[in-house]
């Protein structure tokens, strides 16, 4: 028997670590002008968020080390932002990447929006770690009617 509670709890930490990694890079750039880790963090964030919303990049490798590889992880993201909201964040991150590539100063609003989102995501993951709950995802009841 697998200890499902423990298993589920540790999965939330995967999300929290992912959020913290992106957050650290965003804060270092926005507050200290340190862009050293920004590019890989932005690329990672875009890749993971795209995969979690059902549009993985072509070269995306599935696996348990991904940020959103289980229901618990995907649900945590969904609790923070519905697909439209996540897509908005992906666009903000892509704009930041573009500005960085072009050597242009980044739009502070994009930074704030992204930082706020990842703070929220990490807080939610930590909360779910502390108090895991079980909910039925959207669409399952509709599936009953369709079947």
């Amino acid at each position, binding site marked *: 028997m697998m200890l499902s509670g423990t298993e589920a709890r540790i999965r939330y930490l*995967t999300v929290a*670590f992912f959020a913290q990694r992106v*957050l650290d890079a965003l804060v270092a750039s926005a507050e200290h002008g340190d862009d050293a880790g920004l590019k890989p963090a932005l690329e990672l964030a875009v890749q993971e968020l795209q995969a979690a919303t059902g549009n993985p990049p072509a070269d995306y490798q599935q696996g348990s080390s991904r940020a959103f590889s289980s229901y618990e992880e995907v649900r945590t993201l969904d609790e923070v932002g519905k697909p439209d909201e996540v897509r908005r964040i992906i666009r903000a991150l892509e704009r930041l990447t573009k500005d960085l590539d072009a050597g242009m100063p980044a739009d502070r609003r994009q930074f704030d929006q992204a930082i706020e989102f990842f703070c929220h995501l990490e807080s939610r993951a930590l909360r779910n770690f502390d108090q895991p709950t079980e909910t039925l995802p959207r669409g399952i009841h509709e599936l009953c009617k369709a079947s």
Partner: protein
Amino acid sequence: MQGELAGLLNDAASLSRFVRYLRRFCQERKASHRYIPSSQVFFTYIDNLAGETEAFLQRVVDQAETSAWGLKAQRLRLALVKRVWTWLHGLIKPVADAHTLRVPCPLLILLQRQLRAIGPFSYCQVVTLLSPDLNYFQYRTGPLSELDTQLRLFLPNAPAFPRELAFVAIPYSQGHCLFTNVLLYHEVGHFVFATLESAGRLLPDVNQALASVLGAPFESLEEPAKEWLRGHLLAWSEETYCDLFALSLVGPAYSLASIELFNLLALLEEPDSLRFTKEHPAEAYRFAEQLWYLQATGWWKASGEPRTEHHARIEVLASKPEANYKYPEVNAPAPVGDLLIQAFLRLRQRVRGLVEETCGGLSSRVDAFTKYGPTIRKYLLNATVPSTLTIGGESHHPDPVAIVNASLLFSLASLTALRQRIKGYQPGDVADHGDVAGRVEVWAMKAIEDCALLNRPGEAG
């Protein structure tokens, strides 16, 4: 901002005390008890991680951020490290409780030896935990080891999580037993399943099964709903994989021990035996798969004489019609439960194939059991430890898997015959029957220990 800095200091100090306590606890236990090497590896990891965490906490305060976002990120980082320690807290005490006087060391050594015979696991070790729950568990630490890289962004010198350790929990009341602890093989199966990334390998088949049963509505679902459905099929497949993995390594003793435990947990009566849960397929399905394996490998026939009540129960459970399986979880509306089961049943061959890929060449030796089983039973009937058998005038040290199976079958079928040979025998004496059963376990355990010494690895039987 001053208030935020004070809060940061408080958070860091509180976590520091927590970590120091855990570190000291491990050091004290290590000094006062004897542990198998795998537990010591874990304690060393804790010790090193604690040292690195304390240094990190001091750095956090020394280099406190001044901006609002910076402080927020720093406090979240602290909160995250705290959760890692909260999670480890749940492991430390059960590992510390499982010192060598409380765990079945010969069985663990045998299990570890068998695990190491599987190619990618030649370096692995089994860590046992004593749990307050009356059940066997595997603590999946894989995600934690995957977090190593990320953890090192904050704790640059943090030790790597020992990925080679399989954490399995035994109910504290069963630590001294041999037969029920055969269920540990299933738990190690979870470790093997995760390490081989078997879920990822099954995923295309899972998606295909769901798509074929649910049709177009599956494709139009949002990702959380898809993951929810996949999660069920993967969990049920993993459980089945672990059952077959255990049988491959230890033979029918696993099924017989499962009957013992599930009976104790009242899982074998209808409707419970037909019910799927979020984590498990129905017991009826599980035993149907086990019976298939045992029949296909010849174990069923070899172990069926004398036939025990457990054999009959396995056959009854396995014969339940699949149409009667149910998944009545509160969270799963009935039609979806039925559809999930239909999709899951399509994965049967794929799961069998995965087990074959993992331990195809290692299937527990039914031949050794056939060869040594009758003599082991004879020795036990004479209250003799069956580690050196005399057959045809020659000495043999039997295969430990044959010892486990023959002893368990003896315990189930022939205990009364042994008791009749003991002075003062009272047919209905429950305590005496239990004591003698315990004695058989001790003899079998001793035989396994002796054979580990007498048989060089790889030459057993």
